[in-house]
C-alpha cells in the first residue's frame, strides 16, 4: 500500500465554513481517509498545537489547505510556518483566495471596527468601553497576549506562495470531493492555477436563456432581492435581480440560484480575469438597457464596493493599496 498523503488543514481568519464543507463530504471523506493522513487540522478539528506544527520538518506535509483570510498576527505567523512545512499549499475558499466577506472590514478604519464590535453592536454590554489590547497583565503577574489585528486584511498569496486556489464560500462539498480525488490521482493543473471547471455559473444554470435557445434581453428594470418573488425558471439577471452568475466560477453548480437567490460571486473570477469587481461592473452594466436602468441600479444598491467586491475585496487590484492609506 502506497504511503498515505500527509495532509494539513489550517483555519486562518475565517468562519470554518470551508471545513464544514470538507466534513460534509460524509461517506466520501471516509473513503478519502483511506488514502490520506491528517497530520494537522487546527484550530478546529484535531487536538494539535501550533508548536507541534512548528516542530515538523520542512516540506514534510504533502498538501496543506488554508481557509480564511490573513487578518491577525496569529494567522500571519501560522500560515508562514505551514508554508515552510508543506510541499503544496492550497488557498481554500473565498477568504483565502480573495479576501471574503471579512475583507470588507478594510473599507473601515480599525477604530470603527473595534467600536462597532466591542461597543456599538446591539448585543454588546461594555459600559466601560473596554477594548481588547494585545498585551494584558492579569492580577499584576500573568502576562497575557492575544493576536493583534493587522492593519489590513490579506489573501493567503499576499503573504506566502500558493500553488493552488479553490473558490467558494464555502466550496461546494461535491466540488471539494472532486478536488481531493484529483489531488490523490495527481491530476493537477500547473502551479498557480485555480482548481476549477473554468466555466461560469451560467454554464450550469438551467435558467440561462441562451442555453434554452432564447434571446438574452437588456435589463430595463432593476430589482433587489426583496422586491417580489423571482420567477424560478427565468434568468434572474433577465428579471432584474442582479445576479453575478456570468462573472463567477460555477463549480457550485448554481447552489444559490437553485434556491432562487442571485449569485454574489463567491466562486471568484473566471480564469484570466484580473479584478472580479471591475469585470463584474463591466458585465452587469453592459447587460442593462440604458442609463435610466443604471441610475435605478445605483439608487437601489447604494454601496458599490460591498456589492461588487463582496467576496473579492482584498484581491481587487486597487483595494489593498487604498486600504493601506485609510488609517493615515
Amino acid at each position: 500500500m502506497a504511503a498515505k498523503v500527509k495532509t494539513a488543514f489550517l483555519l486562518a481568519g475565517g468562519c470554518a465554513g470551508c471545513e464544514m464543507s470538507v466534513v460534509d463530504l460524509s461517506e466520501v471523506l471516509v473513503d478519502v481517509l483511506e488514502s490520506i493522513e491528517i497530520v494537522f487540522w487546527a484550530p478546529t478539528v484535531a487536538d494539535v498545537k501550533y508548536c507541534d506544527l512548528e516542530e515538523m520538518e520542512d516540506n514534510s506535509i504533502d498538501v496543506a489547505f488554508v481557509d480564511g483570510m490573513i487578518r491577525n498576527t496569529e494567522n500571519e505567523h501560522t500560515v508562514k510556518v505551514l508554508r515552510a512545512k508543506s510541499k503544496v499549499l492550497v488557498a481554500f475558499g473565498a477568504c483565502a483566495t480573495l479576501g471574503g466577506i471579512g475583507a470588507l472590514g478594510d473599507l473601515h478604519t480599525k477604530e470603527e471596527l473595534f467600536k462597532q464590535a466591542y461597543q456599538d453592536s446591539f448585543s454588546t454590554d461594555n459600559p466601560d468601553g473596554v477594548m481588547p489590547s494585545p498585551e494584558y497583565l492579569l492580577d499584576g503577574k500573568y502576562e497575557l497576549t492575544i493576536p493583534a489585528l493587522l492593519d489590513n486584511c490579506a489573501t493567503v498569496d499576499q503573504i506566502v506562495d500558493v500553488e493552488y486556489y479553490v473558490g467558494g464560500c464555502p466550496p461546494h462539498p461535491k466540488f471539494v470531493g472532486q478536488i481531493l480525488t484529483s489531488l490523490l490521482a495527481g491530476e493537477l493543473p500547473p502551479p498557480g492555477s485555480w482548481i476549477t471547471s473554468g466555466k461560469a455559473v451560467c454554464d450550469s444554470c438551467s435558467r440561462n436563456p441562451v442555453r434554452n435557445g432564447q434571446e438574452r434581453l437588456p435589463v430595463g428594470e432593476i430589482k433587489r432581492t426583496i422586491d417580489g418573488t423571482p420567477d424560478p425558471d427565468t434568468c434572474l439577471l433577465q428579471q432584474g435581480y442582479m445576479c453575478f452568475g456570468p462573472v463567477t466560477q460555477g463549480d457550485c453548480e448554481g447552489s444559490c440560484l437553485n434556491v432562487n437567490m442571485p449569485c454574489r460571486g463567491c466562486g471568484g473570477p473566471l480564469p484570466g480575469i484580473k479584478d472580479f469587481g471591475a469585470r463584474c461592473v463591466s458585465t452587469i452594466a453592459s447587460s442593462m438597457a440604458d442609463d435610466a436602468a443604471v441610475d435605478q441600479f445605483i439608487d437601489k444598491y447604494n454601496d458599490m464596493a460591498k456589492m461588487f467586491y463582496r467576496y473579492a475585496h482584498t484581491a481587487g487590484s486597487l483595494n489593498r493599496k487604498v486600504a493601506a492609506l485609510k488609517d493615515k
Partner: protein
Amino acid sequence: MSFCPNIVGFACQWCTYAGADLAGNLRAKYPPSIKLIKVPCSGRVEPEHVLEAFAQGADGVLVGGCHFGDCHYKTGNHKTSQRMKIFAKLLADSGFDPRRFRLEWISGAEGYRFAEVVEEFTKELQELGPNPIKEGV
C-alpha cells in the same frame, strides 16, 4: 510648487483621439500631462484598465468617447456611459477619489475642447495632489 500630474487617457479613435489630433492642428496649448491610448471605441475600455492605471500610480484617468448619437459603432458610447457611471461609484465607495477619473464626450471637431478638458483636469489634479497610493505602497 505644483506638479505635473500623469494622466492616462483612453481615447476612441473616431472622436476624442481625432479631437486631440485636431487640437494639434489648431496648435491649442495644453499641459503635457495626458498621454493617450488609442482604442477603436470607448466601449473597448474596461474598468480594469482604469483600475490598473490607478494601481500603477496614474494621477488621473480620462476616458474619451463620442457624443451620444455620434458613435461610429452606433451605441458603443452608451455602453461606456453605463459601465463608467457604475464604475465611478465603485471607485468612490472603495475609498478612491472619483475626481481622478473622468469620462468625457469630445468629438473629432472639438479640438479646443479637448485642450480645455485636459487643462481643467490637470488643474484639478494639481489641487488634489499626486495619487496617494504611489507613496502609500
